[in-house]
């Protein structure tokens, strides 16, 4: 026979055990929204007023990352600009012509690739931590951990991560890693930056890139639209862009300054941090159950 006292004791013991287990899960909770970032973290500045749309960066990227590519001369094929292109499972970066009517003169191109957000939605989304924000800048991906849920793709405000849908057994999320091994381990510049003939791309500390961008805008206000894309968008990005016109005219998404993870992580941690919510609910339900049982018992005793 289970008395009410036993019930409470058993429930209590079980709850305590569960709570102890939860403490270790709790350790896995910890939003910092970019607070762990290295002050000297790196990034790239794209000066779109310099880009000539030569697409050498695409070639260098494919070469560096083992992606399919033809020989260098194919970069001169301008017909690719006729259709909207986006980074996909076979290319981490593409150069697009955003104003086809204006012809292919300077400053009509945008190089698109992962922006390496400071507080990335994909990293916040990732169920197993396969995507990570390296404190030094790059957003990296570990295919061995990945379960292939593609929540990162849903979350990305730039529509960057692509997926190898046609790989039957070992599909990967495909995106720019800021040439992680090349930059972080070998100390070199990313392949696209190294390749860029007119030097539209600058690699360096994000703080210094912001300085460079501000100086360029200040020194030649006629050449630039006064906005550094990525300085504040979705909480800031490691990749920055400056151009001659507002971003909405360049086929880039206009984004709020709040990083998406701030919304969801505030909710998640509000409910689950310290497991206050679930534990309180458990307690409340236990009390409800006991009092409802007691009431029923009294009623039955009255009948007897």
């Amino acid at each position, binding site marked *: *026979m*289970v008395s009410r006292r036993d*019930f409470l004791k*058993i*429930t209590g013991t079980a*709850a305590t055990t569960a709570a102890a287990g939860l403490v270790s*899960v709790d350790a*896995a*909770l*910890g939003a910092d929204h970019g607070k762990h970032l290295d002050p000297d973290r790196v990034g790239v500045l794209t000066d779109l007023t310099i880009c000539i749309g030569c697409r050498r960066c695409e070639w260098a990227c494919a070469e560096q990352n083992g992606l399919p590519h033809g020989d260098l001369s194919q970069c001169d094929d301008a017909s690719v600009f006729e259709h*909207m292109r*986006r980074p*996909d499972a076979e290319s981490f970066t593409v150069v697009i012509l955003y104003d086809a009517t204006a012809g292919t003169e300077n400053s009509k191109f945008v190089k698109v690739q992962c922006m390496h957000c400071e507080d990335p*939605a994909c990293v*916040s989304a*990732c*169920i*197993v*931590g396969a995507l990570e924000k390296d404190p030094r800048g790059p957003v990296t991906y570990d295919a061995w*951990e*990945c*379960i*292939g*849920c*593609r*929540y990162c*793709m*849903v*979350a990305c*405000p730039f*529509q960057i*991560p*692509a*997926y*190898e*849908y*046609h*790989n*039957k*057994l*070992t*599909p990967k999320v495909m995106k720019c890693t800021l040439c992680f091994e090349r930059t972080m381990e070998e100390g070199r510049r990313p392949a696209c930056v190294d390749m860029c003939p007119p030097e539209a791309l600058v690699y360096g500390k994000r703080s210094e890139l912001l300085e460079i961008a501000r100086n360029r805008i200040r020194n030649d206000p006629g050449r630039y639209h006064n906005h550094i894309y990525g300085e504040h968008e979705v909480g800031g990005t490691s990749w920055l862009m400056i151009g001659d016109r507002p971003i909405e005219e360049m086929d880039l*998404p206009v984004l709020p300054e709040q990083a*998406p993870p701030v*919304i*969801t992580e505030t*909710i*998640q941690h509000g*409910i*689950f941090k310290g497991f206050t919510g*679930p534990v309180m*609910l458990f307690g409340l*339900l*236990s009390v409800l*159950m006991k009092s*409802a*049982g007691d*009431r*029923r018992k009294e009623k039955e005793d009255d*009948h007897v």
Partner: protein
Amino acid sequence: MSNSHTGGTATMPLAGADRTRSRASSHHEHAAPLWGNTDVPFFTRGSIVVTALALMGVAMIMVRLFFGLGAVTNLDTQYPWGIWIAIDVATGVALAAGGFTTAFIAHILNHERFHPVVRPALLTAMLGYTFVALGVVMDLGRFYNIWHVLVPSMWQGNSALFEVGMCVCIYLTVLYIEFLPIVCERFIGRVNLPGVLARLNGAVDGLLRFLDRTLGKVMNFFIIMGVVLSCAHQSSLGTLMALAPTKLHPLWHTSILPLQFLLSAFAVGLSMAIFEGMIASRSFRRPPEMNVLSPLGRIIPFLLTIYFAAKVIDLVGRDAYVYLFEFTGRSVMYWIEIVGGVVLPWAILLSHRMRRRPAWLFAASAMVVFGVALNRLNVFIIGYTPVYPDHRYVPAITEIMLTVGMIALLVLVYRAWVYLFPILPAEEKGAHHA
């Protein structure tokens, strides 16, 4: 009629002698396996169709595993999630909410009259979540890595999906534990293994008796755990799309999306209990259990009111109501979701007279089910716009075949289970004089 002490309670062996029995199995006199207790054969014209669809589903599972996601889905970079997530997973979880909502009312609030719906709802939840898990596996590119979610070094507490995955995992275990007493009840004193195994009959019987006793002592813990876990992941499922503020249409994107998911789960849980209860009655040629289902229907308008308030206050508070009057495809979907899935069933169920009529009760509960299913579809697919869309996502025929096949498989297993286990209330001869 509305007196709760008519009918059922008289035969309920709750007081006195039976109190020594475990809580978990103290109501078993009310349920019986259909096998040998019904004139309806397992294979009717309807269930043969379901079986055929289920076989198609199994075939599609094979096709998916052998040929990969790219071959069987219309998913791409723009639309990474399709109907397998929106229907098989998100809607599946919502419609399995009958398990914890009826457990809350019947076991935690101890309303005895509702006990007959607890077992069917528990079975729906158990099978529902099993198929949700199967649905997730189908959608995962590297499904064989799903165990990574359980490895502490890979835990990612910032991810709402991690929270959903963990809770669903634990809750599924809890559901199986909650179902064990039914297995015990079915086989205690009736263990009859074939051939040489017959020697183990005594041992297995002893094991079942031990399990039953033990579970009886701890079942309250699992019942409460089930409710806590459900509240946690039903809401976190809403948090998922809150992470895409620039992609999800403002009619649906809000930071209280998790609250709305939870509130709609409450309402749809009880509606599902009614909906499936009435389908089962019809399928097995019994009169619907109106003395249980009708009072259950009475609770739903309260839950719908709270859900409706959370939707409307939020829309007005964010000034997003303006989109309602654009009458674009999306705003029409929102209107259908709210009017057809909330307002109309609310009005029907509020009426004492209509609630007492099987046809209206069924229609109203079906509308709530439809409304919540449409809400999940809206949030995960229809309200979702990629950053650079050049087409709309339309599920591939193979995606639809797998989804339909899995639902059919679930229905088929459900049917098998009610034939084999004491789930549905035993037929009370002449008890349906009302």
